[in-house]
């Protein structure tokens, strides 16, 4: 099923959380083609993280269905986990009493990678972690942590990546590393969903950007095609009615 087009299909997904007055997602539909890098642009609470969590198989939709790599995110969550590499924003979720290499190796093992050591070494080299791979993560800079987290998310060679605000809190050098990683994924034909508040970043790496507001997609555009470079911010403000 992996490789069938589209990579991600969301049909009328609504998500309600107990005790919350409003739905986090309201009948959202979305189609992401294989090899596409889709940006999710929206304010805090718009529903971006909830959408990525549903697509990663961590949350179940209250209504509607979602498939990732052809697998239903509820019925085939294990297959979805195998197809997806996810990185959630804020805390990158590394084990600080393990080394970077042990973190990567742990996830390789849990994801059923066959050549664990070989694949771990490959990730260490790919993300330039050689100098600190055998040091405990505790004490790493935010950039080092983010590179380790990306290596961990990629260790099972997922076809689809979900990156939730991956450059939040990073310095400019570390942010560039992440952006270049996304561009490399794009050139390799991987599907990437990336949420961000940074319009410049999304313009640089995305083939398409959707604007999420109040749990629904209110606009979409292709930077460099539908709009000129540098116009995404103005597009967002128009789409959300915030530009007045």
């Amino acid at each position, binding site marked *: 099923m992996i490789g069938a087009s589209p990579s991600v299909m969301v049909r009328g997904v609504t998500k309600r959380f107990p005790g919350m007055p409003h739905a986090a997602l309201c009948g959202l539909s979305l189609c992401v083609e294989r090899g596409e890098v889709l940006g999710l642009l929206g304010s805090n609470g718009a529903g971006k993280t909830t959408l990525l969590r549903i697509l990663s198989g961590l949350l179940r939709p209250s209504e509607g269905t979602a498939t990732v790599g052809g697998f239903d995110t509820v019925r085939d969550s294990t297959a979805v986990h195998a197809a997806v590499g996810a990185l959630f924003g804020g805390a990158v*979720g590394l084990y600080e009493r393990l080394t970077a290499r042990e973190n990567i190796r742990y996830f390789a093992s849990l*994801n059923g990678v066959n050549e664990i050591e070989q694949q771990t070494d490959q990730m260490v080299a790919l993300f330039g972690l050689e100098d600190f791979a055998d040091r405990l993560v505790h004490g790493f800079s935010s950039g080092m942590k983010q590179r380790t987290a990306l290596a961990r998310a990629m260790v099972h060679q997922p076809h689809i990546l979900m990156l939730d605000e991956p450059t939040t809190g990073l310095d400019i050098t570390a942010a560039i590393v992440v952006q270049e990683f996304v561009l490399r994924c794009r050139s390799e034909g991987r599907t990437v969903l990336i949420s961000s508040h940074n319009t410049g970043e999304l313009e640089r790496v995305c083939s398409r950007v959707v604007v999420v507001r109040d749990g629904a997609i209110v606009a979409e555009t292709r930077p460099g095609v539908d709009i000129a470079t540098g116009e995404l911010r103005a597009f967002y403000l128009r789409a959300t009615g915030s530009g007045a």
Partner: protein
Amino acid sequence: MIEVQPSRAVLRNRVAQVRTVLAKELTELFRDWRTILVSVAVPLVLFPLLASLAFVRGEASYGRPSIAIVGEDQLAIVPFLESLDRYELVSVGHAEAAEAGVGSGEYGMALRIHELGTVVELIYNSAESQSADLTTGVRTALQQYSTAMSARRLDELGLATDVLTPIVLQSRPLHHGPRAAGTLALSLLVPVLALLSAAIGPMAAAGDLGAGEKERGTIEPLFGTCAGRGAIVVGKFIAVTVMAIIGVVSFFVGAWLAYLAGPVLHDAVQLEFWVEWQTVSATAILLVLTATLFSAIELAVSLSARSPKAAQAYFLPVLILASASGYGAIAISNPPSWYAHVPLLNVGLALKGAISGVPFSPVIVALWALGYITLALTIASAVVRSETVLRRG
């Protein structure tokens, strides 16, 4: 690189996942000095320290208890008590002074001798255990003295003295001297120590691997892997249980060190601990089951909590229940058989029974423990399968 698992390999795959989680959790736990401190170092140091303090306090009350004597003794009660060489006898002029001295703790008790020694009044502090114990001993001694006096008078009259003892009592205790004291001490100590150590031992690890993982934001990436959530729970549970057993062993080693340190440091009485290997085996099995039970309960509690702080608050009732069950077990004599179905208390009673050689439904208690462990793990698995596990406080 990814293998979608065929159904035949699922079980083998799950076992591998459990091993992976277990190895990782133990690696992390053994690198956490706080967990090691709470589980190992504190019991090893705390018990000898507390025992030393207890011995120092005990030494202050060493020496012969004092007894105030009020009134003259024409029948040589005082010389009799002096001949026992157990008591410090102090002559006091007035009964009021003796009573006040007993009330203030100056004297353990007082003897007021009336009517030329034919009536002896025992004045003691019934609210104070040392005074009550002392009085029991003196009362027994005086009754023996009274009987001996009657026998002497009968003998002087040429009558048979065995009329005074129509029933002859012969004691044959199963344990003697230091061994009897040792067995009694173990039967009182082990239930409390076992339940407390089994409750405290897994706390740090359970808090770290459940609520701690939520707080650090590592649980989302973990649940985003191909590992089954059941396998993750089982791996964590075994890791917590390993730490719990290490904690229990540390508590008992600490208690043993305290016992060894007592005579060396304080010239205290050396007890003799001698138990059959069957008793040791039964106690060890019950200890492991108890540690496993608390590990399962505390992991389920920790996974349900939104933060480590909340988990610690939830652990408190568990600790109180463990303490109450331990002390309840040593206080209850001849428990009815249905107590074997009362959670935690049944463990304490079974441990006490195993040590004292009066088994208390060990099989039923073990089966209940296994049932509780299964229930707690089922709850933990249900918790991690629900979306609420991703919420942080």
